[in-house]
Structure formats: C-alpha cells, structure tokens
C-alpha cells in the first residue's frame, strides 16, 4: 500500500508538470494529432486518478492490505461509529486528513466538471437561440455554380449567415446532430470564394462529427478546477490546437490544401476593415493573442506538411496512452 501511494504520488507529480510541458512542445503532434490527443486524454485521466489516488491510498494504509478491502473496512467503521478500532489500528490524524483531502479533491473535480458542463450547455443554448433569430440560411455560396454552401442542401447542419463584416466561421455543437450548427459571417462570405468556403465548412463539420467539444470539455473543467496546475493550462491550449489540426485534416480529405490555406490567410481580418475594433480592447484584441500562435502553427503545417509519423512511433504512443489509462486504474482496483 505504501508503495502504491508513493507510485501514485510520483505519477501525479509527473503528470502535473514535466509531462504536459514535454508533450505540448512535441513535434509529433503536427504529423499525427490524433495520437497526441489520445495521449493528452490519457494524461488527464492518469493525472486526476493519481492526484486523488495518492492521498486516498496513503490514508487507507492502516485499514487493510488492498484498496478495496480497506475501503470496505473504513465504510464498516463509519457505520459502526467505532472510535476504538481507530486506536487499535494505529490510525494517526495524518491518515484521516489524507482521506479527507482525497474525498474533497474528488468532489471538487467532479463538481467543477458538472458545473462547467451545465454552464457551457446553457451558454450554447442561449447562443443558438440568438443565432437562429439573427441569421439567415446560407444560399448561393457559389453564384457561378448555383449550389449552396456545402451541407445546406440537407437542411440539417446548414451553415447560417450572420450579418457582420468580421470574417468568422465557427460551429456550435448541439446534443444531437440536428441541433449542431455551423455559422459563417457575411465578412467570411465576402472574403472567400466558393471552393474555400466549402473547405471552411468541412473544417467545422469535422469538429462536429468528431465531437471535439467533448474532448475539450474535460480540459476546460480541469483548468477551472486547478488553474494553478501547469497540466491544466498547457493541456487546455494544446487540446484546442489539436482539435483545429484534426479538423484541418478532416477538411483536407475532400478539399484541396490551397483552399484551406487561402481561407486561413484571406479570411483573416484585413487591416483596414478592423482597425478600430482591433486597436485596443475591441472584441478581437483579447482573442487574437491566443489564437495567433495556433493559426500560425496550422498555416505552417499546411504549407509545409510534416513527414508522416512512423508506424512504430505511433504504436509506441498508443501503448503509452493505454498504459497511462489502465495501470493506475488497475492498481487502485486490485493492489
């Protein structure tokens, strides 16, 4: 038990600082974003589990030889209100504090996840209502060809148009596919040709299809729960960047690379159009800084595609991710 607690503590420390720093700079994320994504999700799980597990296992040491039996014993003592047993087992206050810490931490993480998801869902619903009232459905994405912007033919996840000159495209995930929507601004339609717009819509559809909002949600909650922990900060940024790259890859399956590059470059706010908004504290200013790096990384990746990641290397990352998920879980349940 003491070794398990020590192992989990070491794992927690590794997952807290050095591992996320290493991974967020690792270049393999450019050639194979999905393996990097897998590793991030595994690290989040292993990090959370070991952070809660380390104090839990330490606190359980006097109560039994394995985690399940010790938990059962603690529950039995709690029900029996048996203070004498604590003395017989040489339970020190440190053990009790450790147990409380584990329970509080677990509660904090779960509650934050719950609160983040309900708040996010409410904000999305509000946003969706507003978009519905303000937008018009996309028609004539390409006047020459006379076809609507991709997807609008089905009428389900049609792109909606918001009347504003800032070039913008984004998607709003819904609980069901029918409730998800892709939104384009008039500025985007003005800036891009039909082929480029199709690529943009395909990019957004990939976000929705691959349910990227679920992959980012846990990291958002993590960050809110423990903002001082480097993992959560690096993790949130890195996972957002990876979703963008995954969406680019999805768009590249059916659309030319040039279209994506053009839409990234030409769709960017031209200086004359947005000077008054971007200058100081306009709506674009704050968002700009964060996204500048992501956009630059995406552009570089599109302009000079990184070499394919080797099969063995990819396999190694997958195995590492799998063991991060399985090993701490199994040890808590069995040892």
């Amino acid at each position, binding site marked *: 038990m003491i070794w398990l607690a020590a192992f989990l503590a070491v794992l927690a420390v590794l997952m807290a600082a050095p591992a996320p720093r290493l991974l967020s700079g690792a270049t393999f994320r450019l050639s194979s974003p999905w393996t990097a994504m897998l590793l991030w999700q595994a690290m989040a799980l292993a990090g959370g589990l070991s952070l809660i597990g380390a104090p839990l296992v330490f606190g359980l040491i006097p109560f039994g030889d394995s985690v399940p039996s010790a938990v059962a014993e603690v529950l039995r003592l709690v029900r029996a209100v048996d203070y004498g047993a604590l003395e017989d087992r040489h339970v020190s206050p440190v053990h009790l504090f450790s147990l409380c810490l584990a329970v509080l931490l677990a509660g904090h993480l779960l509650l934050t996840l719950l609160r983040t998801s309900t708040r996010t869902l409410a*904000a999305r619903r509000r946003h969706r209502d507003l978009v519905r009232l303000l937008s018009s459905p996309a028609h004539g994405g390409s006047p020459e060809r006379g076809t609507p912007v991709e997807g609008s033919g089905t009428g389900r996840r049609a792109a909606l148009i918001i009347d504003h000159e800032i070039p*913008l495209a*984004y998607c*709003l995930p819904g609980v069901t596919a029918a409730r998800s929507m892709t939104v384009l601004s008039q500025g985007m339609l003005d800036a891009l040709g039909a082929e480029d717009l199709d690529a*943009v819509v395909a990019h957004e559809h990939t976000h929705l299809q691959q349910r990227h909002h679920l992959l980012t949600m846990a990291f958002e909650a993590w960050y809110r729960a423990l903002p001082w922990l480097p993992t959560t900060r690096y993790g949130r940024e890195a996972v957002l960047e990876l979703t963008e790259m995954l969406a680019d890859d999805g768009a590249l399956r059916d659309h030319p690379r040039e279209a994506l590059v053009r839409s*990234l*470059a030409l769709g960017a706010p031209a200086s004359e159009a947005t000077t008054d908004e971007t200058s100081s504290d306009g709506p674009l200013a704050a*968002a700009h800084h*964060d996204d500048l790096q992501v956009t630059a990384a995406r*552009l570089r990746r599109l302009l000079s595609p990184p070499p394919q990641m080797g099969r063995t290397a990819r396999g190694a990352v997958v195995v590492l991710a799998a063991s991060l998920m399985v090993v701490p879980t199994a040890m808590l349940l069995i040892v």
Partner: protein
Amino acid sequence: MASLGELERSVMSILWDDSEALSANELRGRLGDGPAVTTVLTVLSRLEKKGMVVRDRGLRPHRYSPAASREEHTVDLLNEVLGTAGDRQAVLTRFIGGVSDSEAAALRRILQEG
C-alpha cells in the same frame, strides 16, 4: 404552417425593422401567412422569456418592442465567439483566429504568385 422557430424569427425581424412598439394583433397583420393571435402571443411570451422582447404593460393591448437592436445582439454574439465576454467554451471554435497583418500580406503575395 410555419414552425415556432421560424415565427420567432419573423416576429423579431418585424420588431427590429419597426421603429415603434407593436401589439400582438398588429404583428399578426404584418406576418404574411396570418397565424392565429394566440400563436403570436405564444411566440411573444417565448421571446420575452429569452430576453429578446420587452412588454409594455401600461396599456391594453400590451405592446412589444425589441430588448436590443439587431446590431447590439450581433456584437454580443461576436464577443462571445471571440472570447472577450461570456464563455469561450460555449462556441467550440472559430475558424479564423487571426493572422497578423504582415503574415496575411505575405501569404496573399504567395497565393497570388502561385
């Protein structure tokens, strides 16, 4: 028969385009396919709940006007998308995060040459 969602949109666009507050009956007149007044009232109370319209209870019949202009709502929406206000997580992502002006100019050159 238009869905409630479509009616909400039509009602809002009439209210936004009209300078004065309207009653449910006046609204019904301006809606092309003439839904029942009760339907219009349902739509209005839904919009009121969403904070989109305000009701003036001073006179009967009650008169309705938009809570904010179309432009103000659009700016709210953009702020949310661009992350200065509200919840950035609400909107999954924006395609255009932003390229610096010089980067964009350099790219435009490349693209035009190509």
